[in-house]
């Protein structure tokens, strides 16, 4: 039996293709259901099809139990959407992480986003023991080594290397700000090829961060996708401004929402998202946007259309 030792066997995914062609990429996010309901993923796929290049599948986000990201990614794939499978370190040690990476690639998943994960105390099982055997940077380095050197973390040979397009998250708004660019450099050195950022509401602060990114030439090593979240209501905006650690929501934005009628706020939220995307397209070094419409997938087509980003290119060379 011939074993695939190289990385040339399978074609690259659409997301990687589009980014490498220098086109502005669009990704979105779909949370798996809280039950054994594959049709939920199929429905989300039907909403997003034609509007995104790939879609993230969250991994027990906010530490709440959901269908696993591996299975949910595979369902998206079956319904014609390229998944970006998220993998957190909270729920798996290095053995499980490597095993899931092999499984994901074998099922046709091309993109893997490596995260530390929210702390278990935020979710529905605060009594659980968090694993955190490794962190997101070590996870990136470990999978990258499996792919480039063909070695597992323990040193043994990988018999058939995966070729996952590796991504990571970055939060330009968290503290301490002075290591936010060095931290990105660390992720690049660990093997990340693309980055999806925390939601950008505070454009000036994002620009300041991007300037630091360009000064270090990191935009040439990494494809940076700016996070975009449409705001549904004033309540949501206030919650994000005050309750979510590491999120920056400027006062002007709250005022702008307050200034419109309650029932028009959703439309305003979409408008703000479109405007933010347009600003992102002007910033040198930003390669795309990542739209996180939390349990509001219907907003994604409107935003992508509003920003003039349809039709999506194929990504195939």
């Amino acid at each position, binding site marked *: 039996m011939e074993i695939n030792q190289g990385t040339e066997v399978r074609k690259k995914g659409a997301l990687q293709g589009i980014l490498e062609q220098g086109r502005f990429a669009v990704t979105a996010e779909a949370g798996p259901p809280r039950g054994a309901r594959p049709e939920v993923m199929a429905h989300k796929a039907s909403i997003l099809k034609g509007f995104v290049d790939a879609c993230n599948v969250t991994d027990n986000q906010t530490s709440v139990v959901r269908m696993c990201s591996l299975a949910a990614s595979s369902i998206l794939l079956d319904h014609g959407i390229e998944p970006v499978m998220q993998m957190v370190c909270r729920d798996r040690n290095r053995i499980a992480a490597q095993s899931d990476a092999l499984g994901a690639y074998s099922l046709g998943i091309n993109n893997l986003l490596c995260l530390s994960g929210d702390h278990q105390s*935020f979710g529905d099982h605060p009594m659980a023991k968090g694993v955190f055997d490794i*962190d997101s940077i*070590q996870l990136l380095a470990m999978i990258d080594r499996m792919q480039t050197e063909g070695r597992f973390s323990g040193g043994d040979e990988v018999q058939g290397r995966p070729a996952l397009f590796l991504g990571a998250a970055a939060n330009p708004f968290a*503290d301490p700000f002075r290591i936010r660019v060095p931290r990105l450099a660390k992720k690049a050195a660990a093997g990340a090829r693309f980055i999806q950022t925390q939601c950008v509401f505070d454009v000036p602060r994002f620009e300041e961060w991007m300037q630091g990114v360009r000064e270090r030439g990191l935009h040439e090593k990494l494809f940076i996708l700016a996070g975009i979240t449409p705001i549904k209501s004033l309540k949501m905006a206030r919650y994000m401004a005050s309750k979510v*650690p590491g999120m920056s929501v400027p006062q002007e934005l709250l005022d702008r929402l307050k200034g419109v009628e309650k029932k028009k706020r959703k439309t305003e939220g979409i408008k703000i998202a479109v405007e933010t995307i347009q600003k992102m397209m002007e910033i040198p070094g930003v390669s795309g946007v990542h739209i996180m419409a939390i349990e509001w997938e219907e907003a994604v087509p409107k935003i992508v259309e509003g920003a003039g980003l349809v039709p999506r290119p194929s990504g195939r060379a």
Partner: protein
Amino acid sequence: MIVAEQKPIQAILATLQGADSVLLAGCRGCVTVCGAGGEKEVRVLASLLKSARNEQGRPIRVDTAVVERQCEPEFVDELPYSRDDHDAVLSMACGAGVQLVAERLQDAIVLPALDTTFIGVSEGKGTWVERCKACGDCKLHLTAGICPVTRCSKGLLNGPCGGSSNGACEVDPSIPCAWQLIVDRLERLGMLDRYEEIIMPADWSEYGKPSSMDRGDIK
């Protein structure tokens, strides 16, 4: 040192239900320093137990003894335990001490009076904070002398996560973010460039199983 705190008195009384006499054993080590199981605490607990049991109408005899360290056999062997006089030994040492007492007194029922909480340091009178999880693979030379295994809620060796905000940890605003502290200290030491070195995954091979150490040089 090891920090411990006394169990609630009701919980201790519950474990002593079947006993009419007990040897209450204190320790002059860590638990004396953290005010949980030294001479004074032994005296106070003895009188509390006696009066509680008197009230219940079932008096208990409480003999007391305090040894140098309950984590060393030679001191544990000094305990004036006698099977005829004592239905149980109630140890006010850390969990390790309790176990050594049980090991040396094969026929005694040995009960813990304390909850052992962590390895830590004193932060002023009456305050202790955790500083080490005894991971067996110390990284302090890489992290400016601040332990991320213990002090970062996720034990991240390459932190901080995206939830670090105004110096506080995302998990609880009253917990300082370990990585904010590490970055501040690296900067103070003029070593911020060190931040970019990727710290390799910890070696947990000695952590998941009962450890032992055999030092020929001090035998």
